[in-house]
């Protein structure tokens, strides 16, 4: 007699046990510690923090360990944890002009106040596998340079003005007005379209790096081209300040590492706007340079309407397309769910196809 497949509960338990073993790998190998991942897989940790929207290196490292290095799975762990956290306060806007920079480059000016700082970049490394690392050797370390700006510098030189502010002084770039309006919160309100720029930037900064990268790349290849120059890219730490009502003033609660990219985009003017440079903006937690540049390109492409440009049908111009598909947790969930049982719908389709076929074949026979 036929017995339907049972034992879902036991199967799940067994799967979890097996997964735990696989995660650990060969027990003869020493287990990775969270500090090891945090210190030596820092860029993976950064990506998990950025897309998980939670600035906590240790938790991101834990998530990477638990997820066996699957970064989207790690982002998911962080997101699910983040949702359960209470909101204690909102910080003041961080001041990136007061950033203690590790890296600061401009592609538009050879030199500028504050100077160019190359920082810890892969840019000019030759991509040759370093077999010394495999032999568990270490290249001798020189003392790391201290960051520039922020608290590391004397009073008065602590600020790095943004490149766009130099252009702004001459009226050559669109002005960006400061606003104290409370931005919408993507994680607390359902997405409403059309979205305004703060909401778009929020979606992009936690969006999938690969998706945002490809969207940005498509604009460079002509699908919604925006003629972007990297006006400035800076990486460093900024102070986070929170108002303490009991004290009546703001207190610095810590600092976070950020990557900020501002593009300067060539613009010949439109029906509504005079010729001037325009802006794209990217801000991402941690050192996440590729993502910040990509974000600023996509941000600029999405601004076509406000700048009076034409919609050319390019995917990167299409706000609904970009915002509804940039979240990798949503995407991977819906994608992977098709492996769950669909017996019922499939059966319904099976019966339909059988019926349509038999009718079509009967017609054919009658015709012959």
């Amino acid at each position, binding site marked *: 007699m*036929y017995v339907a497949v049972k034992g879902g509960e036991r199967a799940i338990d067994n799967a979890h046990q097996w997964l735990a073993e696989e995660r650990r790998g060969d027990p003869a190998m020493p287990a990775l510690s969270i500090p090891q991942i945090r210190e030596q897989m820092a860029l993976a940790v950064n990506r998990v923090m950025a897309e998980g929207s939670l600035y906590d290196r240790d938790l991101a490292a834990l998530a990477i360990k638990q997820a066996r290095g699957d970064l989207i799975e790690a982002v998911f762990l962080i997101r699910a944890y983040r949702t359960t956290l209470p909101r204690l306060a909102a910080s003041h806007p961080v001041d990136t002009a007061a950033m203690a920079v590790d890296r600061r480059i401009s592609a538009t000016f050879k030199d500028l106040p504050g100077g160019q700082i190359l920082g810890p970049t892969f840019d000019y490394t030759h991509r040759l596998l370093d077999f010394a690392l495999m032999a568990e050797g270490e290249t001798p370390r020189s003392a790391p340079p201290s960051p520039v700006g922020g608290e590391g510098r004397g009073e008065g030189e602590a600020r790095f003005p943004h490149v766009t502010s130099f252009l702004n002084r001459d009226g050559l770039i669109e002005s960006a007005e400061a606003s104290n309006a409370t931005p919408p919160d993507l994680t607390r309100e359902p997405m409403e379209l059309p979205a305004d720029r703060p909401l778009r930037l929020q979606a992009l900064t936690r969006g999938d790096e690969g998706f945002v990268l490809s969207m940005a790349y498509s604009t460079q290849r002509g699908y919604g081209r925006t003629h972007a120059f990297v006006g400035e890219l800076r990486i460093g730490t900024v102070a986070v300040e929170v108002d303490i009502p009991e004290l009546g003033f703001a207190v610095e609660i810590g600092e976070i590492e950020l990557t900020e990219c501002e593009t300067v985009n060539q613009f010949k003017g439109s029906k509504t706007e005079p010729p001037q440079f325009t802006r794209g903006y990217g801000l991402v937690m941690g050192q996440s340079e590729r993502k910040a540049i990509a974000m600023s390109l996509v941000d600029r492409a999405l601004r076509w309407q406000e700048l009076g440009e034409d919609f050319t049908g390019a995917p990167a111009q299409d706000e609904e397309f970009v915002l509804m598909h940039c979240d990798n947790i949503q995407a991977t969930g819906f994608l992977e769910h098709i492996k769950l049982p669909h017996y019922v*719908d499939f*059966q*319904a389709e099976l019966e339909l196809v059988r019926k349509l076929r038999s009718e079509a074949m009967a017609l054919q026979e009658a015709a012959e």
Partner: protein
Amino acid sequence: MTEIIEAGAYNFAYLDEQTKRMIRRAILKGIAVPGYQVPFASREMPMPYGWGTGGVQVTAACLVPEDRLKVIDQGADDTTNAVSIRRFFQRTAGVSVTEATTEATVIQTRHRIPETPLTEGQILVYQVPIPEPLRFLEPRETETRKMHELEEYGLMHVKLYEDIARHGQIATSYAYPVKVEGRYVMDPSPIPKFDNPKLSGNPAIQLFGAGREQRIYALPPWTEAVSLDFDDHPFETSKAPHDCDLCGARDSYLDEVITDDQGGRMFVCSDTDFCAGRRAKGHTGRLGEAA
């Protein structure tokens, strides 16, 4: 501060109180405007989108400690995801669970409506992947929202009519759209159209949760939900033209099971509780034995 979740100790039914309030408000608005999709700030749940996060959030907002919860996937209580969701609520809400449709006070389902008629006092919570019935005709939310506003459902009728022109019948076998109380066209989630008649005039409260798409909608009890059709092509339900091989039921929705590589197959009730109940009463099918 009961709302703060301490390490290892989650709030009743997992969600924090503010989130539950937000979901509860959305449910009540859904009840007030049957068939209209209420946007809600869906949370990231500890299970993936697509696994029923919308249904889980709606269930979490409705559960009381006295509830008896039933969870089914494809009509079955023992499918892995049904097991997993049931366990989640046992752990986080401490509710008792049941496989018996008649004993359950809250039923969370994916892709089926139980065969056993529901009663007043029961809540049926559907997991919904794509809540927008017009989505595959018009992918833009900004457009479909306008269509619902203007009650402009011509596109849907054109699609159904094209089916008839091409196939002689409406070629939609599941997620078959309904019109609710003569106003909103609604996606009933991917239930087979066999289940559509049970949507209408049901004594239970029916709630629909789409987590990834951030929508909640509802059919209050006794609400009319009419499957879209044409006068000359009325709506028809369909199922495999067989009886259940285990319990002999002639009128239940069937799963097809391939039994060998020689074309052998059998048909069994997709609703495992319904089938087991019939066998317990002595009904047997072609391959079944009395329980």
